[in-house]
């Protein structure tokens, strides 16, 4: 599996020069934007529901320890085994040990972004386990040897034409045609036997319900049910911020989550999983393990508390002009787009990832579409401020801001600077426009700049002449 390589700038350049990527991203995100807009339009109480959803998450987060302990008690009572992992290392070790103890050779997985966050696919391969991704898009990127590029549509960077090539190359039985139905049928056949061969199935969780000890998965393909029911062992990996007080709260959040993600009222499957198979049950796993992962989340509670509201709906990605231009792999972390640019510095360290919060126009559309009103621009600015104070910003850009701010804080000096800079700029102009300007290539590489006026507005006002 190839993780995105190179610096942020390298990855961006690669993405911007990939015309197929632009087509694939626009199909997926454009569709998602239109469907979400229609769903919001059709739900007059949307903004009230959104405020309630934020309050539901804030309540659970404000009493996180209380609800997590309640969840653990109720999960244990249902026969589940609960494991606590401080960091990705611990989480991976716990999962691999459960797989080994179960004598597993084949492990099926339904889509879980937390699994990507903690590096689970790689850990399973290293432990010698055969990993089978059962979500259609995850199946596609497993064939391609890639990582997800979108948290809802992991293969958002691939066109249907790309996928047809992959299926022709790798499926034991090639799809009879390249229409959607034939290709989905081909994937279904390819995966079917593995659902029943696997000894262990691993899923994520959309919600951990404190009052019942159940976990909730929200999916469209039915693969999560086939991943979690036939194998002898079901392992759930979930971040501790997935905790909610009650089933009612989980269902209220589901209404926001699904509409924001796909524009549908509900997904095909909303499943509450509670404990292992009981004596009278016809099917279900013999063991039900829940691995609760902290990984910086308790730290975020004090530093970036609103970020823990995130439902992982992907709306902020679909509406982000930067994501739509560069795609998910350019971000270099498990989570791309605005939410990823807040999370990745917390997970991977700010010094290595400082470009992510900076590469944003702060246009605020992400906050506007967020179903739980996370102030993403404020959180991105928080990282910029941290990066500035820590001295991580490039020296020249930092010096430019400091010098400019020093001058701008001194009106007389500022006017003096204008009287030198503006006439100098005018020398570069032809027919009213500057097409190349020293020290401003970032602008003039792609855009012209208008010739500045002979006199500034304030100079003309001072002299008493109006235009």
């Amino acid at each position, binding site marked *: 599996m190839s993780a995105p390589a190179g610096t942020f700038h390298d990855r961006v350049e690669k993405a911007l020069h990939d015309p197929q990527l632009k087509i694939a991203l626009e199909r997926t995100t454009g569709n998602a934007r239109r469907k979400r807009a229609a769903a919001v339009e059709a739900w007059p109480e949307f903004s009230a529901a959104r405020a309630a959803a934020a309050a539901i998450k804030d309540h659970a987060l404000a009493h996180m320890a209380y609800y997590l302990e309640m969840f653990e008690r109720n999960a244990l009572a249902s026969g589940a085994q609960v494991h606590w992992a401080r960091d990705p290392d611990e989480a991976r070790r716990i999962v691999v040990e459960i797989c080994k103890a179960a004598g597993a050779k084949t492990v099926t997985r339904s889509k879980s972004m937390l699994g990507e966050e903690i590096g689970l696919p790689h850990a399973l391969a290293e432990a010698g386990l055969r990993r089978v991704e059962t979500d259609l898009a995850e199946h596609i990127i497993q064939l391609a040897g890639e990582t997800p590029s979108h948290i809802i549509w992991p293969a958002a960077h691939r066109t249907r034409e790309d996928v047809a090539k992959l299926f022709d190359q790798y499926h034991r039985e090639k799809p009879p045609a390249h229409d959607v139905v034939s290709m989905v049928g081909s994937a279904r056949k390819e995966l079917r036997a593995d659902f029943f061969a696997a000894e262990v199935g691993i899923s994520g969780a959309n919600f951990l319900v404190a009052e019942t000890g159940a976990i909730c998965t929200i999916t469209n393909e039915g693969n999560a049910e086939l991943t979690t029911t036939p194998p002898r062992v079901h392992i759930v990996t979930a971040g501790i911020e997935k905790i909610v007080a009650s089933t009612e709260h989980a269902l209220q959040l589901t209404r926001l989550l699904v509409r924001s993600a796909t524009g549908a009222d509900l997904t095909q499957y909303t499943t509450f999983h509670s404990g292992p198979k009981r004596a009278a049950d016809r099917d279900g796993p013999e063991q039900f393990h829940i691995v609760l992962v902290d990984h910086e989340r308790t730290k975020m509670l004090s530093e970036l508390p609103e970020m823990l509201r995130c439902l992982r709906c992907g709306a902020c990605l679909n509406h982000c002009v930067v994501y739509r231009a560069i795609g998910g792999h350019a971000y270099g972390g498990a989570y791309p787009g605005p939410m990823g640019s807040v999370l990745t510095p917390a997970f991977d360290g700010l010094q290595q990832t400082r470009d992510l919060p900076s590469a*944003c126009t*702060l*246009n605020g559309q992400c906050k506007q579409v967020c179903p739980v009103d996370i102030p993403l621009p404020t959180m991105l600015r928080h990282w910029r401020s941290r990066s500035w104070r820590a001295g991580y910003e490039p020296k020249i850009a930092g010096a430019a801001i400091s010098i400019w701010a020093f001058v701008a804080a001194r009106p007389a000096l500022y006017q003096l600077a204008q009287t030198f800079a503006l006439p100098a700029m005018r020398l570069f102009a032809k027919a009213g426009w500057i097409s190349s300007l020293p020290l401003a290539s970032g602008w003039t590489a792609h855009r012209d700049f208008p010739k500045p006026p002979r006199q500034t507005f304030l100079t003309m006002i001072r002299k008493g002449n109006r235009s």
Partner: protein
Amino acid sequence: MPERGNAPGAPHVGLFATCLVDSIRPNVGFAALALLEAAGCKVEVPLQQTCCGQPAFNSGADDAAKPLAKAVIETFEAFDYLVAPSGSCAGMIKAHYPELFADDPAWLPRARALAAKTHELLSFLVDVRGFSPRNVVCKASATYHDSCSGLRELGVKAQPRALLNAVAGLELRPLEGEETCCGFGGTFCVKYSDISNAIVGEKAQNVVATDADLLLGGDLGCLLNMAGKLRRDGASTRVFHTAEILAGMADHAIGEEA
């Protein structure tokens, strides 16, 4: 300091021209002055103004932004209103000065007080002054880009359209993605120039697709970005700040020499 308009009871407005208008397009400043006076305000342009500090604040350099913010507060707090022909600069003062001074008990009340009386020009004209332009003619088709800060931080959306609908001869055409960022983003457009180019490239295509004579907006930063890209792409769309049209001061578009 020059003062104009002396009707009794007229509100005393401090015009914050913004650093871009001051240096690059004074005509927008004069248009703002004319409109505010036409709307019955007593307008003053404080001569010691420079910049609101947004480039520093958005770079995370709070320490560099604070002296600039303090200067703006000191310069404008005596006025009834601070009005700026930019949603982004007005948004900085209104939404972010209180954030910048959140931990400073001496400056926070002053920041909040100024925030409460700060307005973006076009929304001020409509919402506070109930103004509508009279006898303004502009025979052209135009499309409108909603700049992000004005739209999302200040709710500027209906006001510019209401004002432009009162201009005789002007036909407004809808713009695909009118609420989508143009890729300017202040220092973003030079720091991440290639990403910015991809974003403004799509915007320019959408503008050209309207086949409108004019592209209008309320924020000079965004307008310079889009005008510069349209010009580089060889498009003939003429770009103006909305205030220039409303004041009947639209002889020369951005980049056209007098």
